[in-house]
């Protein structure tokens, strides 16, 4: 019997360990956080970030990068707070069209072999522009069901944790266990060999973009459910947070190496880092800087573990 953990498991150890130690530190600093309400407060904002991180991960799985994630989530939040609240019959088609636009983006990027960074950079202006047209000033109302969903109080575990686990399992099933997920990661690994094997890399890329769009739409709705109103810049920082979350969770920029469970853990870690720093009573001036430092420390830790992994393999 082989008791040696697989390399995928080892890759999950770092994110899981960083989350656990950060959580332990928070509990030690503030024991009152160790409760149903405390945990919910700590992780509440993590749900939309986790969804956006999964969306970014799908795009990174096909070796692309989405610099418009934050702008798109803000746009969805604005649609959800206006059309989806006032007239769902209009709001739902708009969101479906937005997902279709994402899939189309994948098609265009694939066919013309465009650099995804630049195309999504341009798209970020377009999404922000549309959001500004919809909501020139902060406002709007959250749809009742989104509000209900985000403030639900399931027994035993707070909603934020239940939702994170469900998101992680769903994404894990799609990306790691379905044939579509294998295809998407195959395109990231070696596009040419996927095409030679008779699959359509175009369809895989379009599918990955479309699915990313769907997850990002969910992120926007979840965000409005939490904040009850929206504005055009509400989620701009999600672009960088989602990229950092994927990397923290053990994903790579190229090669189709991604981990959905790791990505959700990465998003939780980033959210918790903010709370941890405020519990530490670090001066607000240095809060952003300390988040950068945490990012660097976790990545250094990963490098260290990767070295151990490689040494084991050579033996």
């Amino acid at each position, binding site marked *: 019997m082989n008791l040696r953990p697989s390399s995928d498991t080892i890759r999950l150890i770092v994110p899981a360990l960083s989350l656990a130690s950060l959580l332990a530190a928070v509990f030690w600093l503030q024991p009152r956080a160790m409760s149903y309400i405390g945990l919910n407060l700590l992780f509440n904002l993590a749900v939309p970030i986790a969804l956006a991180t999964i969306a970014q991960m799908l795009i990174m799985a096909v070796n692309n990068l989405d610099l418009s994630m934050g702008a798109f989530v803000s746009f969805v939040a604005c649609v959800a707070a206006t059309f989806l609240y006032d007239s769902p019959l209009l709001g739902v088609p708009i969101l479906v069209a937005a997902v279709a636009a994402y899939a189309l983006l994948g098609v265009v990027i694939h066919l013309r072999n465009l650099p995804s960074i630049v195309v999504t950079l341009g798209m970020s202006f377009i999404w922000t522009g549309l959001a500004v047209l919809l909501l020139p000033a902060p406002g709007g109302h959250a749809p009742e069901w989104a509000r209900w969903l985000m403030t639900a109080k399931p027994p035993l575990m707070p909603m934020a944790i239940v939702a994170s686990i469900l998101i992680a399992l769903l994404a894990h099933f799609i990306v790691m266990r379905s044939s579509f997920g294998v295809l998407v990661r195959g395109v990231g690994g070696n596009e040419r060999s996927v095409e030679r094997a008779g699959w359509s890399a175009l369809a895989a890329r379009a599918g990955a973009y479309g699915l990313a769009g769907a997850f990002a739409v969910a992120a926007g709705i979840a965000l409005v459910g939490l904040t009850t109103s929206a504005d055009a810049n509400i989620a701009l920082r999600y672009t*960088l947070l989602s990229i950092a979350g994927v990397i923290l969770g053990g994903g790579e920029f190229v090669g189709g190496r991604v981990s959905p469970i790791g990505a959700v853990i990465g998003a939780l870690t980033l959210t918790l880092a903010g709370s941890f720093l405020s519990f530490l009573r670090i001066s607000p001036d240095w809060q952003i800087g300390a988040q950068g430092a945490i990012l660097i420390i976790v990545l250094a830790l990963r490098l260290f573990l990767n070295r151990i992994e490689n040494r084991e393999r050579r033996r």
Partner: protein
Amino acid sequence: MTLFHGLFKKPWLWSWLAVAVVWSATVMVTGGAGALGLSQAALTFAAFSVIVGIGQMFVITLGPGNIDLSVPATMTLAGTVALKLMNVDNGMIVPGLLAALAVGVAVGMCNYTLIKLLRIPPIIATLAMSFIVQSAAIWTNRGLRIKPPSLLAEFTTSSTLGIPNMAIVALLIAVAAWVLLEKTLYGRWITAIGQSMAAARMAGIPVDGTRFITYVLCAVLAALCGYLLACFSGGAALNMGAEYLLMSIAVVVIGGTSVAGGDSNVPGVWGASLFMFLVVSMLNTYGLGAGVRLIMTGLIIISVIVVASGRRARQP
């Protein structure tokens, strides 16, 4: 005829053509009035994009994945530190400039140290670094708005022979960058690294040293831009670099530099910077709102990259 043919193969030509079109379209609406003012404003504001754009261009030339996201934070920190040191004293202009440049050197060194030692992708390394630099800027700034020394404020906002001083500074930097890129060993090295890092290493090029210098150069140019921008706008603000993150990437790409690396273009950065400013002022002249303006900017970036990549695809 061959000259004409050769000219059309230059990637920077397109951005300059676009500048001419947008400039005429704006001046036509105003009926010729304000043509001089528009040109001067365009030259001044484009100058700042050119300075950061050239730094970013060197980094992007290093190949796929190389990008510096710490540009806005570096600009803010350099501007803040320099203004604080100068403290409205004309005698401190040179020490202030040196302090700003020192900030750039330090940030660039830290960036590459992270990339090399921790083997972090540059996009994440410079992002993490920018968080720390931004915090340092907040800590130094403390909400104070110190005015620049009068001589420096005068220099950055006035013109010589009708050409804004900022544009002259940016032009000198652009010429220096062109010489550095086209005529020196270092320029050939970064182009070679961008085309194939493995081949460059095999050929005996000091890859690490060259990449290190490039990241430092980019941060120094960002710091210089922050110093000038802070003096131009009458004080350092914490968000003064924010729009230059996307701007620095956009002007490089629209200017005809290959995102895949190994093929860069200095005149194109100038053309693209003027273009980006003129588009915004054109849409303003037409009386369009912020939302429409953003959408148009996005559509223009995407169409430029679609057209540009089609042109490149046809070449072997």
